[in-house]
């Protein structure tokens, strides 16, 4: 069904493209938000990716590759947004308007803060790999295709990012144990 929509949208059918936005928009927004950790920046990145997709769609030869192609446009848009606002985004942090989807006691406040701080230290390339793998559940080969780097680089980035996040949680646990001895 999606390939048919892509073909119609490629021929300029706006309704077909709207259907594609409805099909893939939520997933794209969820990924962009988690990479950028900012509602407005994520909205901008998704809008930029979809408009670029609409403009360049006639050049997409294989409609079956639409998903990979769109995700690559999205990740590149996130890179651009991240770099554009990097200077002050470290000082200003928006909170999600929808609020947390999981109950607070599932991820403790301490863990959440530790992860937020550690994630903020990661480059946008490392963030992308973590989100695409751990949130979107994509295999490493697909992530390599989307991010335009070899699978080995994806693995390396994932390893590096995971270590930083894991260390952040571990050090936070040690700190808490010190502050609140049992």
């Amino acid at each position, binding site marked *: 069904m999606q390939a048919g929509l892509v073909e119609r949208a490629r021929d300029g059918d706006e309704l077909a493209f709207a259907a594609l936005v409805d099909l893939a928009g939520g997933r794209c927004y969820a990924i962009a938000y988690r990479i950028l950790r900012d509602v407005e920046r994520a909205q901008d990145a998704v809008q930029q990716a979809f408009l670029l997709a609409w403009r360049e769609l006639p*050049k997409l030869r294989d409609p079956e590759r639409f998903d990979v192609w769109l995700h690559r446009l999205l990740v590149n848009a996130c890179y651009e947004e991240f770099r554009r606002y990097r200077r002050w985004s470290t000082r200003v942090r928006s909170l999600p308007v929808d609020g947390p989807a999981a109950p607070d006691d599932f991820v403790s406040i301490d863990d959440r803060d530790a992860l937020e701080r550690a994630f903020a230290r990661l480059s946008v390339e490392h963030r992308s790999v973590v989100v695409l793998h751990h*949130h979107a559940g994509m295999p490493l080969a697909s992530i390599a295709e989307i991010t335009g780097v070899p699978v080995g680089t994806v693995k390396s980035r994932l390893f590096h990012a995971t270590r930083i996040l894991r260390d952040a949680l571990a050090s936070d646990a040690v700190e808490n144990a010190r502050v609140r001895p049992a």
Partner: protein
Amino acid sequence: MTANDRFDTTLGAWLDEGPMDLPDVTRRAILTSLPVTHQARRGLLAPGRFFPMPTFYRAVALVAILVVAAGGAALLIGRMGQSNVAAPVATPTTSPTPAATPLAPSAQPSVAVSTPSPLQGHTPTFVVPFSYRLPAGEGLVVDDSDPTWYQFRHPKADGQGYDNTIVVRAVEGGRVDPCAETSTTKPMANPQAFFDYFATIPTMRVGDVTPTTIDGNRGLSATVEFTAATAECPDVWLWTEEGSITQNGGRGPRPISIVDVQGKHVMVLRNGPDSFLQKADEFIASIRFDRPSSSASPAP
């Protein structure tokens, strides 16, 4: 529940927090922009790109065009003036002023290149606990964005990315189960142990194992090739450390060398067309590892 499981669960739950639906305002903004956003059209014979050309490569292409145009103009002016003016004598003396027209990298002489590598004097403390030097850049681009390994690449002739790579990194060993990301690690005593280990991996083929040296440090070279992924081994996690090589069936054999340097194993992997492999071999032959006693002193 293991520490790994607990971490994965916590990270997954944290990532699951947050919005999942595209806001209406964004959807409307996209759809209302469609009528005023013209779709690209291309003729049947026009070359197409799967992805748009990055801004960096556009800038590189523009600079290359300007350099060629300036060079052509200079050549034309030179020929016009040759009828009345004696030909200039080429001398190796240096000019006090820089050349007006820089040569494109491909037009530069391929001999006597003394451009220091971007890594000269660099100490990648995480990867290799000693510095190494490379006397000539040779147009290679260094990717040191990852602290665990270094990657050297040569841009393709059309400027559209790379089809080659040289990876340099220190490796401690392998995995008890190289098909599992969470497997425990297995340190290796020497290069031979690495190649014995490779031979046990079901989706990896090793051939032509021969002795080699890099800057006088002894080790082994071979070609390695990965077959297609299987259900039992969907991906290979080859090293104790991560990255740099994986399972990509059908890419053909790639040369790999592992040498022992001051008690550490240094791995060099080459991948690319034959023309690049020759360049890679020259590059590897130029590597000089600093000795412990001279690590703090400048390069000889």
